[in-house]
């Protein structure tokens, strides 16, 4: 079954991330692909994540497919105008990539080419509309396509956005534009996610996958709180990492992730999880085991 078939059938789906490297040595990436293959339902391939230049998402999606891991093509609007985006979408389609995650993309000022001209010809909501158009045989200018795409469309949302209301209005627009599933920014407060975000999200007929970022250390948790907008690590989790001590912090972080996933699954809070292990993709199966999903 494909990722699309699984999520539509109501299976609790698990995705992780493949971060393309900067450079042509893909040994470590292939190791991650092998570790995830057969364990997760699909892997996002990030698109110049954090505006840092790397191998293109499209190329790595194809590598993942060749190695038996279903890819989700992440597409941002930062680096390509509407012509480039549509051309790559058609290209992805003929390669057999059929799930696309549409996002606006981090600003170039966050990345390693700060002098670059950011494109943003269109943005996430409009990109979803563009993909919907390609699925229906029309390009953005209204020209007929010789053969159309059949993309399953996803988008992202930040449940901890502050304020939340404007974020949820945009969420509604993304649904209207054709998004069928959402992967969220990292969440750590499961009660709040269940009680504040999910009731709003459940007003729409879309699948929600909770974002899980594995905490590696106390320092990382504090960094997320201080420098990453839209992510809040509660104090009690930081205390738990502290109590574990430096050597066991990572293992505790893996257990926290597993515990959260188990709750989200067992209490049927959402439809799946998206695990961002940030360089430790080979640890994802271990997290799934501890969560009782493998």
């Amino acid at each position, binding site marked *: 079954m494909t990722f699309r078939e699984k999520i539509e059938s109501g299976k609790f789906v698990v995705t992780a991330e493949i971060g393309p490297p900067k450079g042509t040595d893909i040994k470590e990436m292939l190791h991650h692909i092998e570790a995830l293959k057969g364990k997760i339902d699909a892997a996002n391939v990030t698109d110049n994540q954090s505006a840092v230049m790397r191998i293109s998402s499209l190329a790595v999606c194809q590598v993942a497919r060749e190695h038996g891991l279903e890819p989700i093509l992440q597409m941002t609007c*930062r680096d390509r105008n*509407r012509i480039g985006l549509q051309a790559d979408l058609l290209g992805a389609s003929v390669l057999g990539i059929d799930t696309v995650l549409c996002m*606006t993309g*981090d*600003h170039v*000022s*966050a990345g390693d080419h700060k002098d670059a001209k*950011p494109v*943003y*010809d*269109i*943005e*996430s*909501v*409009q990109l979803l*509309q563009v993909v919907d158009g390609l699925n229906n045989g029309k390009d*953005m200018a209204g020209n007929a396509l010789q053969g159309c795409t059949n993309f399953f469309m996803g988008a*992202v*949302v*930040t449940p901890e*956005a*502050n*304020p939340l*209301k*404007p*974020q949820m*209005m*945009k969420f*509604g*627009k993304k649904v*209207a*534009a054709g998004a069928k599933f959402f992967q969220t*920014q990292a969440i750590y407060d499961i009660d709040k996610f269940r009680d504040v975000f999910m009731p709003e999200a459940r007003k729409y007929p879309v699948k929600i996958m909770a974002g899980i970022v594995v905490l590696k250390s106390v320092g990382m948790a504090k960094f997320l709180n201080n420098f990453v*907008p*839209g992510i809040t690590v509660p104090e009690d989790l930081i205390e738990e990492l502290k109590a574990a001590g430096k050597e066991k912090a990572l293992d505790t972080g893996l257990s926290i992730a597993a515990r959260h996933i188990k709750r989200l699954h067992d209490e049927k809070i959402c439809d799946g999880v998206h695990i961002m292990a940030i360089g430790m993709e080979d640890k994802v199966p271990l997290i799934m085991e501890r969560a009782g999903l493998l």
Partner: protein
Amino acid sequence: MIITSKKDRDKLLETLNDYDSFFLVGCSECATLCGTGGEPELAELKELLEQSGKKVTGTFRAKTGCQVLGTKTELKPMNVETGGAQAIIVMSCGAGTQAMVEAFPDKPVYPSNDSMFLGNMTRYQMFDERCSLCGECIIDQTGGICPVTACPKGLLNGPCGGTSNGNCEISPDIKCAWVRIYDRLEKIDRLEDMSKIIKPKNWSKSQKPRVLSARPQKEVKEKK
């Protein structure tokens, strides 16, 4: 108005190194308000040049420096001063500088300022950018606040995930454009405007170089 800032004076002097005598042109409009091309700045640059052993044949503050014909007319009585200068230095914006390029076809013309943006003056000599001159105004749909300009990503359909306590992730000193738009739409009881998807912009409207004749076609033809 067009916001300008002074070029680094050492670099400017380096650029002007090939010449010994200059005529300085300021502007009474934007550059005066920006403190880059009014009387005090004309005097300041004159003094700086003279201290560096250069000659200043005259200074002149145009009424509206980007107005090509008017400025040429204003300059006519200053033939001696302009004629005696090897080069012209323009202390206004890029438009004013190029008006002088047209007025002095045989002389090198140098800008003393960098042109920054179309700005609003918030307090004395404090400016911010609210309009990008995109050629197709959409603020009727966004509560009168332009997201093309106020959002670093120019998002047209709501905030990105980087909103932090209502501030922008790119520059935490500024408020998120879409939080501002949301708050304003709520205040004027038009929040429903925000649930409508705004279509991709027609960037051909801002294709350079733009020209416009606001005169009735007939009048233009007759004058020709």
